[in-house]
């Protein structure tokens, strides 16, 4: 924790802010401090509001990442329901969803926000003004509505296209169907329940969210997991990344009807899930991460089996990727489809694969290393064109780099204890706020947790990478044919449950 300008505290990823050292600013001062940090190259990571006091007021925190300095700036204000501050969104579009959330969940008013449409409860509200869809009028303009129940086996969401013929003028993405009250359970649940909920925020990212949860809880409890556990966590996170990226490459192949690669990638994805199952007992790595470490290690006979399986699978993967990327019919569908410019990616604060495919160099493993990533660096993968091809290529490069990481770390795995005594992680520092960023396979996962004066957990905020990126998908569709929507959607592959919480 280092001192910065008045009313802010700077911490590293996984750090704890003593709230006594961070008195609330006046709302307009809070807005000004956020504006300065965001203008100076900062990036909005979270904007949570917690009821930490005894009254109905909310402590609103802004967590802003300074990627170049590997630091997070935290600032704070206090607002009652119905009060507010000048919205950040007109100047910093990346804040749009965060400010809508503040309004929807806490009644805090970002003054001058262009459209405070609820993010998660829109279709239950009776207020017609909040309920409407953006629409386009004119000759030959038509509207296509899809969802919430889609044609495939996929989570629910509603998509509203404004089209001129085949071309999409605008896509509005209307979510909230998956809202399960996850953050509430992360505050109120027993420790065993909380980690089960964290693993289910997005079931395809069970390891990523469990790690973010474990890091904030460990920070609040002052617990540090043993080194061997940090390595196992890294192995699981990279296995999760490889499995999902490989699955996505198969799904992309399927959406352009290139069925050989679709079938083979589909099988190969399972090989990595099966390695996670051999490690943790579950194909998605559930049950592996505990606060204070991990439950399972890799004894030497398993290390040998993993190494052999990885080598065999990598050879099959290379042959499949070669088939995919050398096919002209695939290239003609992937290239220049669903382009997101680097300027748009920056403005919207996109993260993860999607940002890197638009040449926005951000990766929490590099910028805010935590756990094993402090000792082992995985080179960042960047592409320039921002299209479906770029998002496919970034995934393929990341698969290869994660495989290298897996090979090396399995070979060098240190013996040693895997977890600290389980009771140590149950008592928290009072009046504290902890932040953890994990680069999941989709992108940056942020968890923020805060305690009150008695050391009780009183606030928990989850920011799935999808929360940043859904608007990027809407922008990618502009001036594309509506028939390319499935392909564009697959190239983002965002989480509905992770957004809706």
């Amino acid at each position, binding site marked *: 924790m280092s001192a910065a300008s008045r009313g802010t505290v700077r911490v590293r990823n996984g750090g704890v802010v003593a709230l006594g050292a961070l008195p609330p600013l006046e709302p307009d001062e809070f807005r000004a401090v956020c504006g300065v940090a965001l203008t100076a190259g900062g990036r909005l990571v979270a904007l949570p509001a917690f009821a930490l006091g005894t009254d109905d007021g909310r402590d609103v925190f802004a967590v802003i990442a300074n990627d170049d300095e590997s630091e997070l700036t935290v600032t704070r204000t206090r607002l009652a329901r119905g009060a507010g501050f000048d919205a950040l969104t007109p100047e910093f579009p990346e804040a749009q969803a965060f400010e809508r959330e503040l309004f929807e969940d806490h009644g805090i008013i970002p003054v001058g926000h262009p459209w405070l449409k609820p993010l998660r409860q829109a279709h239950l509200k009776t207020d017609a003004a909040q309920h409407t869809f953006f629409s386009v009028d004119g000759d030959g303009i038509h509207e296509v509505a899809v969802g919430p129940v889609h044609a495939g086996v996929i*989570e*629910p969401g509603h998509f509203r296209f404004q089209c001129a013929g085949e071309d999409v003028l605008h896509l509005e993405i209307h979510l909230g169907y998956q809202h399960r009250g996850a953050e*509430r359970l992360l505050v109120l649940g027993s420790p065993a329940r909380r980690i089960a*909920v964290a693993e289910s925020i997005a079931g395809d990212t069970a390891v990523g969210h469990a790690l973010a949860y474990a890091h904030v809880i460990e920070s609040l409890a002052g617990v540090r997991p043993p080194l061997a556990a940090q390595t196992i966590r890294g192995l699981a996170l990279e296995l999760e990344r490889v499995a999902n990226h490989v699955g996505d490459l198969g799904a992309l192949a399927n959406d352009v009807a290139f069925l050989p690669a679709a079938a083979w990638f589909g099988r190969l994805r399972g090989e990595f899930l099966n390695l996670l199952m051999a490690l943790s*007992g579950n194909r998605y790595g559930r049950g592996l991460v505990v606060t204070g470490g991990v439950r399972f290690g890799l004894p030497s006979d398993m290390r040998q089996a993993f190494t052999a399986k990885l080598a065999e699978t990598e050879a099959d993967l290379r042959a499949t990727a070669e088939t995919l990327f050398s096919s002209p019919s695939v290239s003609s569908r992937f290239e220049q489809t669903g382009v997101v410019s680097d300027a748009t990616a920056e403005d919207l604060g996109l993260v993860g694969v999607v940002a890197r495919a638009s040449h926005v160099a951000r990766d929490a493993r590099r910028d805010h290393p935590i756990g094993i990533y402090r000792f082992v660096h995985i080179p960042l993968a960047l592409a320039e064109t921002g299209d479906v091809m770029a998002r496919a290529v970034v995934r393929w490069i990341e698969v290869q780099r994660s495989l290298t990481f897996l090979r090396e770390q399995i070979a060098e795995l240190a013996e040693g204890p895997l977890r600290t005594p389980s009771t140590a992680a149950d008592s928290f520092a009072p009046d504290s706020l902890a932040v953890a960023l994990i680069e999941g396979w989709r992108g940056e996962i942020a968890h923020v947790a805060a305690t009150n004066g008695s050391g009780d957990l009183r606030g928990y905020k989850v920011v799935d990478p999808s929360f940043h990126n859904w608007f990027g998908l809407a922008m990618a569709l502009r001036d594309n044919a509506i028939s390319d929507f499935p392909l564009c959607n697959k190239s983002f592959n965002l989480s509905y449950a992770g957004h809706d919480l």
Partner: protein
Amino acid sequence: MLDILQARWRQGFRTVLLPVTQDAFPDRFRGRPIIDSTKCVDGCRACVDACPTGAITITAPAPATAPATATAPVSTSAPANRVTLDLGKCIFCPACVEACPTGAITYTRDHRLAARTRDDLRITNAEAPKIAALDAAMRKLLGRALRLRQVSAGGCNGCEAELVALGNVVFDMSRFGIQFVASPRHADGIVITGPVTHNMRQALIETYEATPAPRIVIAVGACAISQGAFASESGPVSGIPPEIPVDLFIPGCPPHPLTVLDGLLRMLGRNES
């Protein structure tokens, strides 16, 4: 084209042939748990307290002798507690196994978990849940061609991903004549995942109603069966509405694709294949 054929040759034949045994799963795989109540220590509730979803209940046996007084030691010869584990609530985490001081609960690698009634999911010993096939008329209708519409109603994409995996070359559900279809109008039944959020309740009911009768309903995963990790008294989830009767429960978090396939095939009376 030759390259594609060469790559295809390299991939080989990858489909899992049924039936599979426990050896198909790794040592740490958490399949059907078994309970040995005779190992329980009187008064111990460690597993009940450790379980994140309240899946375990202990009913003390009726005292065989006069109740012990406050100062007298509890008789060690009394009949054991009766431990009941609800597979519909279980998320197959290791918490109870870790908490148990005597090893009375263990996970086997048996992937077969499905049951036809909610009550059959409550197990008390080492036996697998019972499962009866559909009646002859339904088997005649659906036994060789079953088309299902999937509805995710708050699912985290864990169960959904495993249902998608059923279509890949490894599990290849379509070899049994079972497929997911795009419209409930084309379906013989629906597969529900997720704890049924308030925001999906109406869409779920409408999808069910749009499916022509006779139709079957399959609940996949702890959330759909019991709301799983999201069960709470005042949360925004409420489970499958009573007007949608469930014909098959497939526990898990998420269930392994082979667990789903086993449940479907046994419901169709095709476990012999």
